[in-house]
């Protein structure tokens, strides 16, 4: 592609995020690339790996205990995106710590660990264990707190939609994470996302990841019922790009905290729009499911030659 004249960033060069230098600015988003271990033997036509030029893999969200996830069906494709209701299926924190993270380290995968918990105070012990266990790891770069997964209702409201809750989660994690990047992934399903970003910044987050999925629903006309057993799902993909850009703009201009842009990115042009608004990095989510090479391709195409 022809890169615009204003474009000055080097997306595959290291950059500083809080206390940590990360290898690059094009990442894969949580929930769309598992733990980053599935595609190591994949090769593109030119022989390259899906990890080439990728600055970080944000893991599938890990919770204190293993989760079996939601009932099937879990996915609905729509005209311009998809609804998901996976339900945070994951191996659980101890298994992740013992088996998955060491494997990522051994393979040299730049990793940001996504964590979720049911109470803000649960984040402290998780991050503490992570820090104790992996402080010597060269490729573990940070933690992203999943404060916005709409598929796991706690007490009937979206966890992380209250600024005070965001602040408590970030503060609990920050206390045990002195030398790695701390990001808060925040929900767009609120009146004012800037308030969430502000709470995260003031509690010590190095950046916010924006946005998580947008609450959506689709109806199966054959039955007259929602496709998803839990009715609502997280809407992602092409359709949410303008929504994500708007939220990122509100945060960048209103709060002044570094933003990692995520939502609807499938092409280099999509990523450029987030960078144009001031994002320091971007994440590729749904497109990575369709094409394991999507993030690598974007990194390659945005590299200034």
């Amino acid at each position: 592609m022809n890169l615009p004249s204003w474009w000055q960033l080097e997306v595959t060069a290291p950059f500083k995020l809080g206390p940590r230098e990360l290898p690059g600015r094009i990442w894969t988003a949580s929930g769309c690339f598992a733990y980053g271990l599935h595609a190591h033997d994949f090769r593109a036509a030119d022989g390259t790996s899906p990890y080439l030029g990728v600055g970080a893999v944000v893991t599938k969200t890990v919770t204190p205990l293993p989760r079996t996830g939601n009932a099937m069906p879990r996915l609905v494709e729509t005209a311009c995106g998809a609804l998901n209701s996976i339900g945070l299926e994951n191996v659980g924190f101890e298994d992740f710590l013992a088996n998955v993270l060491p494997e990522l380290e051994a393979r040299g995968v730049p990793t940001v660990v996504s964590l979720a918990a049911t109470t803000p105070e649960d984040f402290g012990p998780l991050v503490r264990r992570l820090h104790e266990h992996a402080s010597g790891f060269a490729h573990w770069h940070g933690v992203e707190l999943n404060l916005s997964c709409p598929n796991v209702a706690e007490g009937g409201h979206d966890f992380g939609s209250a600024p005070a809750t965001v602040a408590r989660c970030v503060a609990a994690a920050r206390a045990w994470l002195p030398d790695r990047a701390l990001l808060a992934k925040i929900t767009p399903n609120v009146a004012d996302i800037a308030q969430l970003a502000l709470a995260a910044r003031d509690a010590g987050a190095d950046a916010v990841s924006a946005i998580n999925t947008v609450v959506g629903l689709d109806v199966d006309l054959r039955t007259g019922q929602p496709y998803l057993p839990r009715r609502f799902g997280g809407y992602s993909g092409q359709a949410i790009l303008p929504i994500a850009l708007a939220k990122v703009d509100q945060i960048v201009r209103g709060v002044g905290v570094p933003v990692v842009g995520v939502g609807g990115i499938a092409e280099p042009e999509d990523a450029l729009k987030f960078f144009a608004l001031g994002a320091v990095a971007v994440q590729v989510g749904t497109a990575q499911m369709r094409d394991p090479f999507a993030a690598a391709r974007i990194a390659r195409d945005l590299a200034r030659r």
Partner: protein
Amino acid sequence: MKPSRPATRSALGRVTANALVSSAFLRLDLELDQPFTFLPGQFVMVNEPGPRSWTFSRPFSILAGAGTSLSLLYRVVGRGTAAMASLPRGAAMQVLGPLGEPFPAPVEGSTAVLLGGGVGLPPVFAWRERWGGPRDRAFFGARDGGEVPWEMLGNSWGISVDRAEGVPPGRGAFTGVVTALAAAEAGLAPGDNGVVYACGPAPLLKAAARLARAQGWRCWVSLEEHMGCGYGVCKGCVVPVREGNGIRNATCCFEGPVFDAANLPDLGDPSVLPGTAGGAA
């Protein structure tokens, strides 16, 4: 990662043929930009190339492939397959594969009983092309004679149909379910070391598992699920499998699509309480 699986490639394919092989099934032949190896039972994810393609690629079991050519069998069931059916010669398709757990190769001294139902034909067809021997038996079931790809199957497949109409003159077809045909015609005595390899709709898989249990045979089935990614990362295609005394979710695309029927509670093994592994969380 299981090293036994051929490496997954992202390839660009060009359509060389895309036509009906029966009243219901189309065969798509692609010429890829790189060589491609696969094992029977594996599948590919296909999509239109470019930025604004379908949100999710579509999974298809591999019918045949050698060198840079790849063939798929499909029927039109939704938006993706409808778009595929209108692809002209020369159209480009993005292909990711091979993916998934293949069927096991034949065991010395065993006799394969291959069961294909409808568009579930490709994995068992590919098994037979790759590994089939003179003792192995292959059976295909369809709704009626018009659905059967007679030319592709030749004379060596037993054919069953739900309804007898559409069977060409000079060709025979059993009226009834394919497992009943296999039970009657496999020519195996109880105690013969039969191994069932099956792919098709759920009732066929249940009947295949039942047949195998009754005969004391091993039974491998290839499951179909809607898939998001096809390579194990999204957890959108899980199926309940037995593990120890419990049931857990397995990804159909990565841990499957081929499973040992004995590990699938949904196929009605009476020693397992049926249930879903999801829902609680």
